């Protein structure tokens, strides 16, 4: 069986991710594509560098997929995240969710990306004209462990 959750050093193929969730039971496929933004609050990004703890990241993405299948029965999900140097407008992440009806495909897709930002060990380094910095925006609980169900 093909991998549904993976970290890639090569450019992501959107259709390749979508194809993994196409099936006769589905009436909707929602695709989320995260790209590299040039300007953040007026500051220009030259390029980004992504790094992952690949084996753990793939495991955590799979867990997110399992959470989604529980919350939205009948859904199927695939997610891929790129690592390495990415230029402006390059694709960093692709998430595809198929569901029997459209409403849950939107909800599940949103859940997937928010949850990914919380608990999947992937980091990005911003490179600007005048410097560089690893950016983190992970939410943490008091225990230091992100819990299921914190995303609403």
């Amino acid at each position, binding site marked *: 069986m093909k991998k549904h959750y993976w970290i890639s050093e090569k450019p992501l193929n959107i259709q390749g991710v979508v194809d993994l969730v196409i099936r006769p039971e589905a009436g909707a496929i929602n695709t989320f594509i995260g790209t590299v933004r040039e300007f953040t609050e007026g500051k220009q990004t030259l390029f980004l560098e992504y790094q992952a703890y690949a084996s753990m990241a793939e495991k955590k993405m799979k867990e997110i997929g399992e959470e989604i299948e529980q919350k939205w029965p009948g859904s199927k999900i695939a997610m891929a995240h790129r690592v390495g140097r990415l230029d402006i407008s390059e694709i960093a992440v692709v998430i595809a969710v198929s569901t029997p009806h459209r409403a849950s495909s939107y909800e599940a897709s949103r859940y997937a990306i928010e949850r990914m930002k919380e608990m999947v060990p992937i*980091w990005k380094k911003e490179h600007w004209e005048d410097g560089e910095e690893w950016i*983190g925006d992970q939410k943490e609980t008091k225990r230091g*462990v992100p819990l299921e169900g914190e995303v609403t």
Partner: protein
Amino acid sequence: MNQVLFFAELREKTGVYKVDVELTGFSVNQVKEWVAKDYSMPKVQDAMVAINEEFALNETIIENGDVIAFIPPVSGG
């Protein structure tokens, strides 16, 4: 024997990706203190720690063979 992994900012600041070290019997919190001191990395206290690819609590005790990863705040997507 144990393996300690560093990522992102922590990897750059410590200058290492992977360290083989005996940490069996220590708590996650004690490991954080060791890293903070030996690598002059006070920020390590804010990082999460994963043991064998699962997030761990500060009180968790390291067992022989465990792989310990320091996970600074993530930002994928």
